[in-house]
């Protein structure tokens, strides 16, 4: 049995769903953030697999841009999580209930 790019696309879809479930089910801000990174990597896998299947370079190129943007997002995201953690001594989003209505 040969493993075609379609298999990678299916794996990426599974990874994406796992990441999305992590966002919805976990309550720790750091774990939720890791789930977002998992989703981005699932997208990268989709890009590479589709680019390989279609024999165009755009897929591989897109991955490089996504990785740069994800790195920038990590910088800002971790800074925000650290700021929240310093004030409240917890990174659980359940503690963040000051704003409601």
């Amino acid at each position, binding site marked *: 049995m040969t493993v075609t790019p379609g298999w990678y*696309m299916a794996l990426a879809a599974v990874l994406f769903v796992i990441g999305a479930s992590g966002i919805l089910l976990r309550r720790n801000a750091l774990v939720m953030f890791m789930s977002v990174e998992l989703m981005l990597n*699932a*997208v990268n896998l989709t890009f590479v697999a589709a680019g390989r299947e*279609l024999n165009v370079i*755009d897929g591989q190129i897109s991955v490089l841009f996504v990785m740069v943007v994800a790195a*920038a997002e990590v910088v800002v*995201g971790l800074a925000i999580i650290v700021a*929240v953690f310093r004030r409240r001594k917890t990174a659980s989003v359940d503690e*963040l209930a*000051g704003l409601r209505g």
Partner: protein
Amino acid sequence: MVFLSLSFWREAGGAMNVNYLSVAPELILTVAVVLLLMIDVQWKPGYRWWGIAAALGFAGAIAASVMQWVGHRGEDAAEYFRGMIATDGFSAFAGILIFPIAAMALMTAWPLVRSLGRRGAEFVVLVMIAAAGAHLMAAASNLVMLFIALEVFSISLYVLAGFTRARADADEAALKYFLLGALASAIFLYGIALVFAATGTTSITGIATFLGNELLFRPGILLAGIALLVVGLGFKVSAAPFHVWAPDVYQGAPGGVTGFLAASAKIAGFAAAARVLTVALDARIEDWAPAIGVIAAVSIVVGTLLAIAQTDLKRMLAYSSVAHAGFILTALVGGAAGVADMWFYVATYAVQVVAAFGVAAVVSGPQQGPAPLADYAGLSTRSPGLALALGLMMLAMGGIPLTAGFVGKAAVFSAALDADYLWLVVLALVAAVAGLFFYLRVVVLMYMQPAEGSGSVPVPLGARIVLVVAAVVTVLAGVVPWPLLRWLGEALPG
């Protein structure tokens, strides 16, 4: 899994066609940002020079956008940098709209900038970068370029939302905005990847050509991609049911930031949505238009109903912005025919929302924190000017005739009627009437309730200018909307 587009790939686009005018607004703002940061590190000149650098940057960006409008609208639209940047009436008008809005928001946030001490320079820089990203979203003609622009814009806003470290609710707002924004970006990006997998290109015009020429026998991947793109953009423009972040973020972020966030997210988000839906996916309008109609209806109903229950002005405006996102989406159910009507609503709403949050920022003091409605009781006796400005913005958002809000609603409803979405227009009309309740409640509170505290609220010069400009624009666009409507007929994707 079989790809029907196996043999299809886009021509490389010929030579690298460079045109610096097409990215001039971004270049000018970036140069201003770098100069501001370098001068600030070296000489520490203080906030006056930050203001001058920002004013020069925004003035240059507006001038460049006007030059794009003069030279590239209509027939002269073109794509540059190997099909990455589109320079047409659409992107030029987005620049003419976004940069003055960003400058106005910065003026209302100026007392906050001054109170931040040395960190104020970073605040000014982030607003400028976010504005550049917002314009790039409207000008991107490649989905990967659009994603990068979206992230430049969003990441700046995550930081801005939590900029006042002294208040606990600001970092809560920043974390909520960041987590849900990152989720929305990932969903949007997966949409791009699936559309790429189905069509073999990320170029917006390339996708349009492919979908116009090829008949897809198994369009599942494409449809999933379209759905994810719509969800991702729905998050960014705070359309229900993807609006859950908006109230917390709007309430927690400083008033001047919230005005910019609300206005620029609407402009950039709807510009991107219009280009993706009506250009790239135009051949698939039967697939996405019903979904847009349902999202619009849900947004209008949810936003209106929840706004009625609010006791904080910023939170009420957040839910009202959800409803407005629904009204604006109403224009898009007709596809390309509704783009001019969408622009009219977006432009006038952006001005109104910046001014309304400007008043909230002034009334809640230099930290620009929460804005409980009780603070506005009897505002007309304490500060008649502020009460008049906020009252006018409330009437305009409610859609009272002779304000821009009325013309905007009439425009988007006529676009939806042309597309045979009668049920949506009827629903929107009912919701608009119900919405008058909470807009007029603010007016009644200001004009017919006794003042609790005495003493007028001091209005800084920047906020004063913003409120006067916004009031003039709102009345003018409401009484004589025809010149603006005629220009917007040329603000279309090329």
